């Protein structure tokens, strides 16, 4: 069972690992943890509390906290979209947080309408089992294999991450991995 303490510990560990900080405003931070826990309970994964999720893993994958957009947003604006993660100067109170522009592409935003599961209905399959089934259900999702040319990290998703979670290389360092079944001579 997910608890607020688990949500907090996970966020603290992630901030430490990735060189960012948690929002220093305690009541606001607790509201964010509440939202993350609420989403994990109803969807099965902690999607961003400040974005509309569908409850379908493949469609929400990019907004599962920490979202795909966190690192570039923290770098550019001083905080991520929901302001859970902040930059050092914001943590130290030298800069304040405010709502930032949405970096998530419009087609992904549009995905939250018309395909949702609401009212506490949770996924009938585990997230790890959804990739193939939902890819069939949503043919518009074109999953590809991407690899980081710097460290070799491999992922299977629509687009490469903005920043490699392993070596922090930028998106431009990712290339699509083409798998072919060629005839042997």
């Amino acid at each position, binding site marked *: 069972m997910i608890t607020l303490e688990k949500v907090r510990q996970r966020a603290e560990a992630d901030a430490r690992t990735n060189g960012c900080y948690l929002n220093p405003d305690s009541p606001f931070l607790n*509201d964010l943890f509440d939202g993350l826990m609420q989403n994990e309970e109803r969807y099965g994964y902690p999607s961003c*509390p*400040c974005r*509309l999720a569908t409850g379908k893993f493949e469609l929400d994958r990019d907004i599962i906290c920490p979202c795909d957009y966190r690192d570039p947003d923290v770098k550019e604006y001083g905080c991520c979209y929901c302001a859970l993660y902040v930059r050092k100067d914001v943590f130290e109170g030298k800069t304040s947080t*405010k*709502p930032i522009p949405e970096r998530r592409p419009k087609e992904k935003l549009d995905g939250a*309408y018309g*395909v*949702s599961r609401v009212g506490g209905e949770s996924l009938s399959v585990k997230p790890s089992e959804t990739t193939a089934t939902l890819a069939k259900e949503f043919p518009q999702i074109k999953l590809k294999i991407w690899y980081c040319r710097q460290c070799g990290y491999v992922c299977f998703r629509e687009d490469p991450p903005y920043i490699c979670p392993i070596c922090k290389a930028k998106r431009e360092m990712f290339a699509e991995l083409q798998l072919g079944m060629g005839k042997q001579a």
Partner: protein
Amino acid sequence: MKSVKVAGKNSKHKVFLYTLSSCAWCKLTKKFLTEKKIEYEYVDVDLCSDKDRDAIRKDIESRGGEPRYPIIIVDDKILIHGFRKDKISEALGI
């Protein structure tokens, strides 16, 4: 679509919000309006049916907005994205 009405002494303007039940910025917005004793009505979009979500998106887009929350609509004319205390205060004259 289920909306919730929050009573307040100041009902000079018609204030309507689209919010998410999990969103911390949305909570801040509601708290701010309540503290200022503003009467308002809100819909938590994440708790709505697919059909209602579609209708909400169309309503937001017809007002020139984008589907990101909270959205504050004052007197059916002014649309504010996000918890922008300065803009909300200006629109409400507080």
